């Protein structure tokens, strides 16, 4: 019995994130990678297609800080709390 198309796509995107060494944080519903200093919220991953995700993964993070892919973008205080948690 097949899975839903939406679930198939989500699992596909998860595989891409896993392959790129992104870790899933259940409480924050976000994937992150300390090496690339990027994080993706589940909502963002759900909303975007595979090409958008691959493009975002390939995009260089030229800043010193983290790049968070979220829509809407959370306030800096929330990003700081999230980063404190995952770096803690």
């Amino acid at each position: 019995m097949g899975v839903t198309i939406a679930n198939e796509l989500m699992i596909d995107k998860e595989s891409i994130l896993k392959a790129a060494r992104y870790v899933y944080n259940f409480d924050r519903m976000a994937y992150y990678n300390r090496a690339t200093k990027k994080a993706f919220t589940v909502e963002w991953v759900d909303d975007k297609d595979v090409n958008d995700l691959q493009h975002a993964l390939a995009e260089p993070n030229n800043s010193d800080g983290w790049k968070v892919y979220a829509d809407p973008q959370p306030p800096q205080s929330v990003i700081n709390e999230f980063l404190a948690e995952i770096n803690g």
Partner: protein
Amino acid sequence: MVSRTVEDRLRAEYFDLLPDIRRTLLETETRVRRDLLDVSLALERYERVLVTSRIKECDSAVDALRRRQPLGLFVAERALEYSITALPDLAAVRVMAFPERRVADAQDALQQTLSAWKADPVPSTDGSAPLALKYFGKWSPDAHITAEVQIVGLLIGLFWEVEHSAIYKPNPNLHGAVRSNVIQRRDEVLGALQAFEAAFEEAIRTAARREPPPPDPAP
């Protein structure tokens, strides 16, 4: 003085609203049972229509609202913008019926009552008919609490009773492990339950065709 956290404020709001939530649940369940009376009285021995109801627990409600925020975090500076009343399922009634035709009967019976509510069907695992029908609404324009009514096949509904609390409630043992493997297995179970219901429905139809016609009335 230590200021209250967003969570503390929401917990206080929850308990202020609890009498309202209870009244909403009572009204929802009573109206649903009234609408289903004819269906329930017409059931065959092997058929079932069950109505269950629940009030979302305080911590579950706060957690559900938190998980709707970006990165699953409240912003302390926006504490006054959050309200438990944003949740559409504080008071929820689930109608579970077996076999499939009784799900359709329940839906027909409730159609008029729920016609003005927002429909949000749960999509199926294979793109066919929805797994369940969900409706959200309020019983009066000035009501604070949104109620949810869900209509679903009994087998899937009972599976959800276990599956939802295992997967969606906070459970540190499942962190990070629930997304692909468990979701794929869950979809297989849902597909199998749907297939069973369809096969059972077909068996009933076949049996009905084989039944001898009633004898002619005596002249």
